[in-house]
């Protein structure tokens, strides 16, 4: 859907993006991650054609990204903004028309979305009379009204209460199900794991990690397991196929956190443990995206 190829963006005294290449597949939810100042906003602005790269190119469905693609992209910036003194209905229609929708089509769709987002009665209200959450809903509607094939959402859940965040999340997933590709920029790693198929991690103007979320997490597995058992505390021994990270008394039993030695398997652990303890459970600790994020970024520094 989107091929970002060798993008370089130079500002007077610093390079915001240095030879960044990313592939985003059609119909997927793609997470664009990175600490503040990594270059996420610069990249998003380039995809939105707000600014142009110094070198490199972007392909939209195989075509070179150009003006004709503007109406096929929907953008929700991190810093939300609406005209404070303008009635929200009128405002939605204005944004939709700027994206190339006819006034009539825009009105029909806006009415539908207002109903759906439970803001139907607010059509003639000015933005300044609305609550923050309500403004966010209006902004979201204006982003999706022209049914973009590519949705770029920068921190879409900030400013929403948990109920409305859930509502927005479901809308995003529904749009994705209908075929929209979604680029999703966020710091909230739990939502990355929940929503994203693939991610790219930017740090200090470079892409330092990308791929499918599942694969990345697999790659970062360390062979760490938690074993719940009844019995005496484990003592380290040379014959163990694992090393003990911790072993603590839990209500009614013990919990052993272990790391399997290279060359050994989970079954070896069980073989070793079965004769000496009653096993209640065994679970692998796969690193969360949050841990991977922190680990990768701090390693890069």
């Amino acid at each position, binding site marked *: 859907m989107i091929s970002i190829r060798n993008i370089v963006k130079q*500002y*007077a005294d610093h390079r915001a993006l240095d030879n960044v290449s990313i592939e985003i597949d059609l119909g997927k939810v793609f997470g664009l991650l990175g600490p503040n100042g990594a270059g996420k906003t610069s990249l998003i*602005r380039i995809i*939105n*054609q*707000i*600014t*142009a790269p*110094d070198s490199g190119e972007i392909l939209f469905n195989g075509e070179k990204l150009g003006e004709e693609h*503007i*109406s096929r*992209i929907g*953008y929700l*910036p991190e*810093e*939300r*903004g*609406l*005209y*404070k*003194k*303008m009635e929200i209905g009128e405002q939605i229609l*204005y*944004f939709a*028309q*700027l*994206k190339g929708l006819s006034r009539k089509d825009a009105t029909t769709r806006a009415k539908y979305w207002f109903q759906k987002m439970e803001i139907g009665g607010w059509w003639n209200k000015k933005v300044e009379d609305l609550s923050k959450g309500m403004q966010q809903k209006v*902004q979201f509607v*204006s982003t999706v009204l022209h049914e973009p094939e590519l949705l770029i959402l920068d921190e879409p859940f900030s400013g929403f209460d948990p109920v409305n965040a859930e509502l927005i999340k479901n809308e995003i997933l529904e749009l994705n199900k209908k075929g929209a590709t979604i680029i999703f920029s966020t710091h909230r790693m739990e939502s990355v794991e929940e929503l994203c198929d693939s991610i790219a991690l930017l740090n200090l103007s470079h892409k330092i990690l990308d791929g499918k979320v599942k694969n990345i997490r697999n790659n970062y597995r360390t062979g760490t397991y938690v074993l719940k058992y009844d019995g005496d505390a484990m003592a380290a021994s040379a014959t163990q196929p694992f090393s003990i990270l911790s072993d603590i008394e839990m209500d009614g039993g013990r919990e052993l956190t272990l790391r399997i030695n290279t060359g050994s398997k989970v079954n070896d652990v069980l073989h070793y443990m079965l004769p000496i303890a009653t096993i209640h459970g065994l679970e692998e600790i796969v690193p969360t995206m949050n841990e991977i994020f922190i680990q990768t970024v701090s390693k890069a520094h």
Partner: protein
Amino acid sequence: MHKIWLIIQREYLSRVKKKSFLIMTFLAPVLFIGMFGLIGYLVAKQNDLGDKKTIEVVDESGMFTNKLRNGSNIEYSYSKDTYAAAKAAFAKSNYSYLLYVPASLSGVQLYSEKKASALTIQNIETELSDIAQTSRLLTAGIDTAVLAKARKPITLEARQITEAGEKDAQTYVAYAIGFISAMLIYMSLLIYGSQVMRGVIEEKVSRVVEVIISSVKPFQLMMGKIIGIGMVGLTQFILWIVLSLILSTVAGTALMHNSTPPMAAQVAHVQGASPHAAAVAASQTPDGAMAKIMQSVESIPVTYTICCFLFYFLFGYMLYSAVFALVGSAVDNETETQQFMLPITLPLIFTFVISMNFVINNPDSSLSVWLSMIPFTSPIAMMIRIPFGVPAWQLALSALFLILGFLFTTWVASRIYRVGILMYGKKASYKEIVKWFRYKE
């Protein structure tokens, strides 16, 4: 093109629909006329508005006793005391001034506790000189009747003579029109220009700009805003012009009805006798004077003047508002605009002051011609010159320069604007702005 039109529409409608637009359109002229009326009234009445001043006169010459005319706030009273006695008692007396005229008339003195005002000194001097002159002439044996005749003032009638023929110069009408149109242009450049600036700041502060420029080019947004607000200004001016044409027609008709006999005589004069005689006849009666003004107003090429005015307003506005937009894009809030406002307001104020004081009195001097050519000064300077008559080639050249100036300023402004609107929380300096200008897209 379609998108820029949408932006123009929004900028225009969101302002015209406001109640304040209607109120300003109809109230501003009333306030203005009221303000000028009040200033005129106060200036005319400055003699009456001051406190009453009593002047004790010690007249050793005897020439002035009981002859000085009391003004509306000056009252003379004549003292029988000697100069020395009056002077000694003055500090304790209730008089504001003590006027001493020695027998020789040289060394006339005016004493007062506080400093005497220039106006008072002038009034008394005129009064004394008048009386002294008359009395000297009378002493020389000149008859009062001859004197009265000799004193009759001469009024000058300025006329223009060109290849096309002869006509009234109507300098005062040209003066008034030049003054009013330059004033209007000056104010509207500032008012609508800063509206553009505020609009840009509003979009930047509310961050709405990021959403919009993901749909349109920054240049389109800037031009749409400038044109939209310019159309608001144009609407306002056209409403004012239509309104004042209606009012003056109504007033003219009313005047015609009220003063039928003199007007009829006047018309007869104009048609029959020479225009010179008509003008003399006209200046003799107050109604005639009014008619003369009406007549001169009718003789101005109204359409030509209005067209020039609208042209210079529109392009002058677009030139300046591009710079205003630049400033708006460089700052984060309105208070930060101060440091950048000076380079905009300075040429405006300079032109305005020099136009009102120099160009209006010397419309054809080379400085005036230069000022009416430079794009940043021409909207005001040229509008002052137009009622006095400007050669067509100068008008064409000035218009061309203004259009070129507008294109250039817009180009520069848009390069800075496109970067500035996305710069949040960065303190803009002139150096920074030059850097933005050099950014590639």
